[in-house]
């Protein structure tokens, strides 16, 4: 039997798989990231960045 191809369904499934993989990646990296703070400036010190 010839296989049929549904491009839209494929894209949706692939996007869902991509999202799941991303969430998985976040959870994998959680142990590394748990003890770090996001790079937001707590006080309004307006520097462009620090080396």
């Amino acid at each position, binding site marked *: 039997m010839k296989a049929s191809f549904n491009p839209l369904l494929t894209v949706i499934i*692939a*996007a869902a798989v991509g999202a799941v993989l*991303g969430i998985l990646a*976040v959870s994998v*990296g959680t142990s590394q*990231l748990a003890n770090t703070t996001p*790079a*937001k400036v707590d006080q309004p010190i*307006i520097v462009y960045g620090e*080396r």
Partner: protein
Amino acid sequence: MHRPSPTRGPWRRRAAAGLRRRWPECALGFGVVLVILGPVLGPGYLLRYDLVFVPDPPFGAMVWGSDGALPRAVPSELLAVGLSRLIGADVAQKVLLAGALLLAAVGAARLTPVGHPAARIAAGLCYVWNPWVYGRLHLGQWAIIAGYAALPWAYAWVVGVIRAQPAGVGRRAAIAGGLPVVLGGPALVLAAVLTCAPALVLARRWRALAAGGATLVGLTLPWQLAFLDRGGAVDLDERGIAAFAARADTPLGVLGSVLTLGGVWNRHAAPVGRDQWPVALFALALATSAVAAFLLSRRWPPALRWGLAIGALLGIVIAVAAAWPPGERMLVGLVEHVPVAGIVRDGTRMLAPLALLQAVGLGLLVQSLVTSAGRAATAILVLAPVLVLPGMAWGLTGQLDTVRYPPEWASVRAVVNDDPAGGSLVSLPWSSFRAYRWAGNVPVLDPAPRAFRRPVVGDQDVLVGRERIRGESRAAERVAAALAGPGDPGPALRRLDVRYVLIQTDQPGAGGLEGRFIDADLVRRDGALTLLRLTGDGPTPAQGGIGTVPVMGYSVLTATLLIALLRPTKRLRRMLLSGHLVGRDRQ
């Protein structure tokens, strides 16, 4: 009688056929957009560092590059404002960011000469999921990412030229995909030259080289003219060379960091975990494996392989030069004598060709493993970019967030933009960056220059750590001198054609500012914004139009785009872009 072309079916059929052939790239593109930008795809504005979109932005002086500052936002700001007027600025912002990531992933996957879907996905994923893109996303440099995204398409055009492939949909797609490189400004245009020129030179495709060069000149003319219109000379602060130099964000030193596509000058823009030995070594092993696979593969002719390798090597040299004392001295000397040499400041932007090489190399590596190794090993290699940099997922692990502007911005903007009288607006406190509590106190460029139609004069200096890097705007220097004087600065500012003063009272240093303007009229005090109108004598002509210079520049840009993209001008397009004179090149 009209006869349907046998090669052209209905667009739906062609789209379905394209999707059937390119489904791995498309799935990857949409997947990475969802995974990376998922948390910020809702309503609201993403405000951080260089990423500033405002509601209902006008086609103001900044868009045309006529505000006296370096025309860094030309021509990307025109696209941003134009799209914002069509679909709303917050939606436009997401569309541009998502479009850039999609273009990058699809472009790299499409470029890589492999057949297996996993290999194409590996290439696309590697190109979009790396420390380089992480750093630029962190810094909010959407236009730089858009230029980066165009590089695989531009190189696909080079591949078509060198392989003398027949013209068709693929060639047209490569040209269309390559054109956004101009959004990245002069730095990414230079990166495109580094990427494409060596291969064309090695293959002796001189006409194609000239055609590509002419196209880039046409596309960048708005920037060039705006640059010349402000005098051409740039007094670039030489301390910026060291401040924006590559830094080691891994234990592997500057060179090792750069080879793994990191080394961004800002420590906060480096992905978390790269300072750990295992992560750094894994990243280095991945990078060297990809480079080796690229160089050893025979799927491209030598000119394509060695051309991209030369471009990547030149990019590495530029990136590390400022971090090496003799190189830093050389760059300082260069910047002093060549006005546009400042584009090599923040040299890690020149690692884009290396990123492309590594992405293609990883795709080739996966292709070779598909048949020889097991599925598990192949899957690990495909996902290796994600495994080594998990912090890129979900809005850089929660760092990207959306906010809404307080309502006072709309009311103040309406007052100022409805005033037909000319004159500029000075934004205070005197600081190029803002940190809004309602935006998480993340540093962000002052939104005022984008919110008002008239020229906005604000501080152009930037603070890198404790180092103040002087800006390049002469108008800003004059206003700063007026503000530095004792007493009411109003009269001095009026003589500089300043009509309004906007004080953002929720910012550090705002206390007492309003009291200095003794004779100014209070127009509006709303929330954290205070708007003053200066009184007294001063040149306040009616607001001018766009100006001749931007009209000329954008006319040439539009003509270049039309020649490149429209079929009726096929002949001109051939002359300018597609390198179809390959046959003559080869003779």
